[in-house]
Each structure stands twice: as C-alpha cells, then as structure tokens.
C-alpha cells in the first residue's frame, strides 16, 4: 500500500481561516501542491508546508502574518524557488506565501533613472524592458531568466557582472514590506542621498525573508554601456588562469566580468551547448569589458597581453552580440550542467579576497583529492567568488557525508584566507552552521536580537540564517550536525 506521508500538524480551523483570508482560488493544501513547494533549488533539502497561499494584496499578507502570531505557525515567503541555500524551503508547521503572480513593473522613471517593481517580476524580463530604452539593470544571477526581484533583494543576489557593477544591494533604493506584526514598512525612495535615521533599506537587503515580506522594490538603473567586448581564453594549466586574474586586477583594469571554469565544468557545459569549448583545457576564463568606445578597446588589448603572458593557449574574441550572449548563457548553465555527471550537485559559494584566489583554487582541488569527492569548480574569479560544486548522489549517504566534509575544509580555508562562507547565495539553512565562525558570537547575537525584536514570535522564515529557539522551529531537514552523527 502507499506509504501515507500526508499527515498535517496544522488544525483545520486555522486552515479555514487562511482560506477565507485569501479566497478559495488562492489557497492550496492538497498533497500535490504541498509537495511541489517542499523544495527550492537547493539540493537535499525538502520539507512539506501545511498550505500554499497566493495572497492578492498587502492587506492579505498582513492578515496572514497576524494570524500566524496568534496561532503560532510559521510563514515562508517564496519567489521562483531557485535559491541555493534553502531560504525558501518550508519548515515544520509552516505555510508558504508565493509571490510569482506579483509580476508587474509599476513605473519606469527615465528622469530619475529608477524603476518600481512588484517582487515577482523576473530579473531577466526587467533587464530586457529597461534595455529597450537604453538603460541597464546590471545584477545578473545565473537564474536570471527565472528568478524574481523579491528573491534577489532578499538574498542580495550577485552574478557575473558583480566585479564592476556590484550586486543587488547597490541598486536597491527603496523597499516596501509587510513586517511580521502585520505593519507595512516603507523605506528609502528616489533620493540619491538620504541619511534620515538608521539605514533600514540596506539592512533589509539580504535578510532572507526573516524580517518581512517584500511587496514593492524601487531599483536604480543606469545607462547601458555603449560598447562590449567579450573574450574567451583557454589555459592548459589551472594555476596560470588564476594568476592571469590576479594580474589583470593588479593592472588596475576592471572588466565587467571575469569568469573561471575548470575542466569538469567545461566538459559538462559543452555536452549541453555544443559550441566548441576546449574539452582538454584545464581552465577557461570568460572576460567582458564594457564602457565607452576607445577605452574598451584599450582595456581589451591590455587584457590580451596579460593573458598571453600567462600562457593562455588561445584567446577568442566574440565577433557578434549573439556569440557573446551564447558564451555568457553557456556560463550561466554551469551549475545545472554539472548534473550531467551526477544527479546531486552541491554548490557552494566560498569567497576570498581577490589576491587569495590562486591559493583558494588550489585548496579546492586539494579538498577533492583529500576527501575523495568529485568537485567541479567555476565562478566569478574577478571578485573572488568561487562555486566549487560537489558532484554526488543524494541517495548515497556516505558520498554526501564526504562532500560535506570537503566543504567544511573549504569553508575553513576560506575563512583563514580572510574570506567568507557565502558570497551571493545566502546563509539560509545550508550554511548557518558556519555563520558563527565567520561573524563571531557578538555578530550572530546581534542578528538574533534584531530578529527577536522585529519578529517577536519567530514566525517569519524561522530557522534560516541562525537558530533562535528550537521550540518554534521544530526539526529541520538534513543538517550538517545530523550528517556527522550518521
């Protein structure tokens, strides 16, 4: 007989209250609907919510949160569910609030160069819309064709262009969000300068849905660069590519992107896109420079010289816009393409100061050997943000354990080098174990205090980033501590 896993904790009275709050057509609690909101893009983490809600306006969200405080259930906000740290994976006794239908671009202000959007607007669509009028929204996470602005803001998403253009936080001018007590907070605005009180806006960016549910975002946009040159350099030796990156930075050139891919990653991507990437190279660098005409040409020439000096075996220049786009798109598929080797790809984003990059790359190679795990490595070499990815199968518990050991090693090495445990994916569930090592006890204590003041009953995305009180949070899916006990 079928194994019944359909038990629920939430009482039916609470469910009917939720149903009447959002209406029958926006409330779902079938096994199927709970199942398909039990995961996000993070491997190995899953937990069924009690119900899935599609609220229609701020007032409904506010009512849901008020009810959550009264009846003590958790609320987990969610966009497209492409996150990589478990930020939108439900917890025990929780409901999921999905914001994918809030997908309107409300205003493009060409005079002030701002754009006001709902949280469910897809990042790539926003970019296309503003580019139509010669403007530019730079943050470009790998999942930009799917992920939402709300999720980007909640996780302070980065991307390929972070090196020159920064990350999401550099573009957020204002946020509206419903606080855990149901109040609507409006902070920031179109002013380029604003020092009235605490800088709440920057504090909200990257709070991973633990402080409020974002309902509107005001973003800064900039003029679109006039000229772009995309280069692809092949290397026979991994270390040469890392040295080339350091040399380019040291030459005071800031490309808009400088992406690194190792041999395993190259081969998986080539299997998918078939655009003639060099299967035998130990590494490739994808470099883009942009800006005004002649400056771009000059920079690209200097970069080419540096690449040659570092024994690049071949340097390709994209001749058309579509070729350049093809190369960038190929790079963006790296994480998922690695699943061609093994089904569970555990991706991390250890980040180090740029000068330490060659050492970090070596340490990652070492960890793969030492702990006997297959690791594909790629990432944003230009800003020291690497994505070592363990290629595993979650059904093989021993292999997963080995992968986690390898990552423990990698994170420790990153911290030793003055780096961080996560550059752009967020802490969520998968990295909270390491937070104290990085932020220190006073740092984590301050975060917890802030959280407990804003969210008194710990109802909003509890258990993410750090653990406040196991009482409300219940048991969490596969934690590192548990794995070690196996």
């Amino acid at each position, binding site marked *: 007989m079928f*194994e019944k896993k359909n038990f629920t904790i939430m009482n039916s009275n609470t469910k009917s209250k939720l149903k009447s709050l959002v209406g029958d057509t926006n409330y779902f609690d079938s096994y199927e609907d709970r199942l398909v909101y039990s995961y996000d893009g993070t491997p190995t983490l899953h937990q069924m919510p009690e119900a899935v809600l599609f609220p229609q306006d701020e007032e409904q969200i506010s009512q849901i949160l008020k009810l959550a405080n009264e009846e003590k259930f958790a609320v987990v906000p969610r966009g497209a569910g492409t996150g990589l740290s478990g930020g939108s994976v439900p917890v025990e006794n929780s409901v999921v609030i*999905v914001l994918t239908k809030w997908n309107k671009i409300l205003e493009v202000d060409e005079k002030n160069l701002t754009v006001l959007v709902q949280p469910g607007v897809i990042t790539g669509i926003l970019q296309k819309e503003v580019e139509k009028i010669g403007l530019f929204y730079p943050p470009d996470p790998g999942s930009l064709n799917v992920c939402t602005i709300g999720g980007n803001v909640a996780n302070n998403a980065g991307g390929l262009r972070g090196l020159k253009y920064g990350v999401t936080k550099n573009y957020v001018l204002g946020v509206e969000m419903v606080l855990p007590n149901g109040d609507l907070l409006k902070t920031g605005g179109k002013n380029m300068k604003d020092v009235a009180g605490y800088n709440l806006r920057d504090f909200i960016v990257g709070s991973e849905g633990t402080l409020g549910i974002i309902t509107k975002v005001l973003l800064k946009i900039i003029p679109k660069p006039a000229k772009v040159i995309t280069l692809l350099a092949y290397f026979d030796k991994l270390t040469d590519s890392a040295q080339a990156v350091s040399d380019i930075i040291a030459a005071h050139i800031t490309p808009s992107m400088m992406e690194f891919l190792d041999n395993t990653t190259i081969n998986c991507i080539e299997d998918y896109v078939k655009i003639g990437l060099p299967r035998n190279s130990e590494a490739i660098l994808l470099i883009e420079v942009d800006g005004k005409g002649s400056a771009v040409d000059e920079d690209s020439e200097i970069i080419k010289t540096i690449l040659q000096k570092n024994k690049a075996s071949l340097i390709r220049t994209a001749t058309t816009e579509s070729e350049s786009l093809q190369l960038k798109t190929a790079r963006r598929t790296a994480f998922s393409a690695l*699943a*061609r080797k093994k089904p569970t790809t555990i991706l991390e984003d250890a980040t180090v100061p740029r000068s330490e990059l060659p050492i970090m790359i070596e340490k990652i190679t070492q960890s793969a050997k030492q702990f006997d795990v297959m690791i594909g490595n790629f990432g944003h070499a230009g800003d020291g943000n690497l994505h070592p990815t363990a290629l595993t199968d979650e059904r093989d518990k021993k292999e997963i354990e080995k992968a986690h050991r390898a990552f423990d090693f990698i994170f420790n090495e990153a911290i030793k080098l003055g780096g961080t445990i996560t550059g752009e994916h967020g802490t969520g569930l998968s990295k909270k174990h390491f937070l104290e090592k990085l932020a220190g006890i006073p740092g984590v204590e301050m975060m917890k205090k802030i959280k407990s003041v804003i969210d008194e009953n710990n109802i909003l995305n509890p258990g993410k980033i750090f653990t406040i009180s196991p009482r409300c949070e219940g048991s969490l899916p596969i934690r590192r501590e548990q794995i070690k006990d196996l």
Partner: protein
Amino acid sequence: MKSVNSHQELLKILPHDDILQQCMHCGLCLATCPTYDLTKMERSSPRGRIYMIKSVARGEMELSETFAEEMNFCLDCQACETACPAGVKYGRMVETARVVVDESIHRQKYSVKLKRFLLRNIVASRKALKFVSGLLKLYQKSGLQNLLRKTCLLKLVSKKLYEIEKLTPVISDRFSDSNINEIENPDGKSKYKTAFHFGCLMNTMFADINQDTIDVLKSVGCRIITPKDQVCCGSLMGHNGDMEFALKLARKNIDAFLKHDYDFLISNSAGCGAFMKDYAHLLEDDPIYAEKAKIFSSKVKDVMEFLAEHKPELELEPKPEPELITYHDACHLAHAQKITSQPRDVIKSIPGIKYTELDEATWCCGSAGIYNVVRYDDALKQLERKMKNIEKTGAKIVLTGNPGCMGQIKFGAEKFDVNVEVLHPVTLIKKLLS
C-alpha cells in the same frame, strides 16, 4: 487488494529512479514552460511535474486527479528539455506518466477509451482515415459545413463543439499515397538515394505539401522511394498514453522501409520526424528490432534539415512579391530534434526574400498533437499569444514545418483576425523552383 498490485505493476513503466533523480530541481525550466507561464504555479511546471512523478514512482504519493490533470495539462512541447542544462528527458517522463494515468485511474473514462479508439482505429489505419477524410470532404464540399457554420447550428448543441469544428482541416482532393509513385526519379542526374514518409494526416489533409516535398527533392537530384506499405509513425499514440500500439507501428515502418536501399528518410512533418528518430531509443530493449531501429532512426531527416545541406543545389527564381516572411518553430523540430538554424538558413537563402524573426518563435502554438482538440480552451490561450507575436512582425506569410502547427495557426489567423498566410517552407520553395 488487486487494484493496488496492478497499480504497482503499472508504476514500473515509469522511468527508473536514476533518470528521475537526474532533475536537480534548479528551476531553469520554469521560464520556458507555457503552462507554468499561464498559472505561475509550481505544479504546472516541468520541475513540479517531475517531482510529482518521482513521488508516485517511489510509492510516496497516490495517483490522483490533480496528478492526472497536470500530466494532461502539459503540452509536451519539450521546451523544458531545450532549457535543461542537466539533460533531463522530461518528454518521456510525462508520456509514461500519461500511460499510467490512462491505464489506472482513467481506465474507465469514456474520453480515454474514445481517444484510444480513434487513434488506433482511424488515425493509424490508412483505409479508415481515408474513409473518414472522404466523409469530411463530402461534408466540406456539399455545403453542409458552410450551412452549419453560417447558421451556427452547432452552437445550439455545444458552444465548444462549434469552436472545435473550425479546427477541421480542409481535406485534400487527392491523397498522397495515390498521387506519389512508389519510385520517383529526379529531374536531372540521380545524386541521392532517399525515402519518403508521407504521414497519416499529411497524406489526407496536406497532400499538396507532400507533393511539393517530392517535387523539391526531385529538383535537387533525389531518387525517392515511397513504400506503399508504410504506416502512421505512431507519435500521436505514443504521446497520448498508448506506447504499446505506437511501437507496433514503429516495427511495421522499420520493416516497410528497411527492405529498400536509401541513405536518407525524409519527413516533412516535425512530429513524425521526431518520433521516427526516437525509434532507436524506444526499441532499444527489443531483441529483434533494436539494431534495425538504430539503422532506421539514423537515416531520418527533416526535409529542411536535408535541404540546408543542399542549398546550393536549389535553383530558385527570385520571389516576385517582396512580402515579409517569418518562421514559427514547431516544437517537435526545435525542441525534440534541435533543428532551428537549418530552416532559417534555407528560407533566408531564397532570393528576393524579406525575412523577419518572430518573437518567441520556439514557444508552442497550442496545437501539440491533439491537445488543441482535447484541451481547446488551454490551447487557445497559447494560440492567442502566438498570433499576437505573428501580428507584431507584420509578416504576410508565416512558415512552419509541422501540419499540426499549420492547422492551428491557420485557425488562429481566422479566430483572431490576423491577415497572414500559413505555408510549409517546402511549398514556398516549390513555387519558386525554376
């Protein structure tokens, strides 16, 4: 509990856990899924569907109406396969899930039985299809169709039936299997040994396109064998939960073609071509047919795929009227066969052509096999989107390489009042042959 046992037997036909596990739920498919785009709900996405199939296969979730609904809501356009960097074969998963649904919880459903009966006994049987087509032709020529349409009599019976009736394709005057000789010799020197699959629907409803295909192939030096004992490719059955019957047809086709000597088997219907290229995979465990299927599939080529390699041999007059032309990718060409550049290369090489790219050209038009009939309302939403994009191009001609898409877009042009002619690329080429 006998039903449970048979359920579990049935579940064994779902893809193996290793294949289901390949989806690492990254979500990159979501943006390309036409049904997810409509509902913005995870259950209508490839990722959600795979997760559900996995749970059913592992015995963690019961087969339910919700499950069945989502499997059937899917267009099986396979745009997600194109988008998937991990190479997940979603189409096969959803198709086998449909078999499981049809064989279990929907086994007694009248509509499932009817669908199966029609596909097995009418579409797959050339005699029956020709007979029904004959009746349809009579209906169209006798004025009964006009009468029904003008008086809106059908509307009184059922509004939906009245709408669906408009999807009835115009039946060709003569069918290809009698028009086309078993062996057709090229106009000039014989350069290529080819074979031709004329399809089931193409045979009776698009016989002109088959004739155009033959003429164009002859012009580039093809000797064409068209075996009379060939049958329907089986794709409609395969995609609609009747793989057993589809494979019967596959074996018949393999036998019918492989007794002849040819290097390329040309198909002008994206759906048929995709399915015939897949015989190798579908029959890989068949002790007798595995090897033969491999040979058969390796030779299948879409007509535009073939022509792209023989562009210089096409001798065309410049197109006299410089109308703007655009191209719609049939899902079974773009996503199932990964053929997107070849048709464009050929079309753009036609002298005197003005070509414009269609926005969302690879987005499904809603035809999707028999989807536009069995799920008329859902299909219409996709069609409306397609027609808006076509209208935006300002093109007077839209080219597409699949009979289903052609019928659907023709219907859309009328329904949404878009002034555009729908042609198969070979028809345009045929017109310009010098």
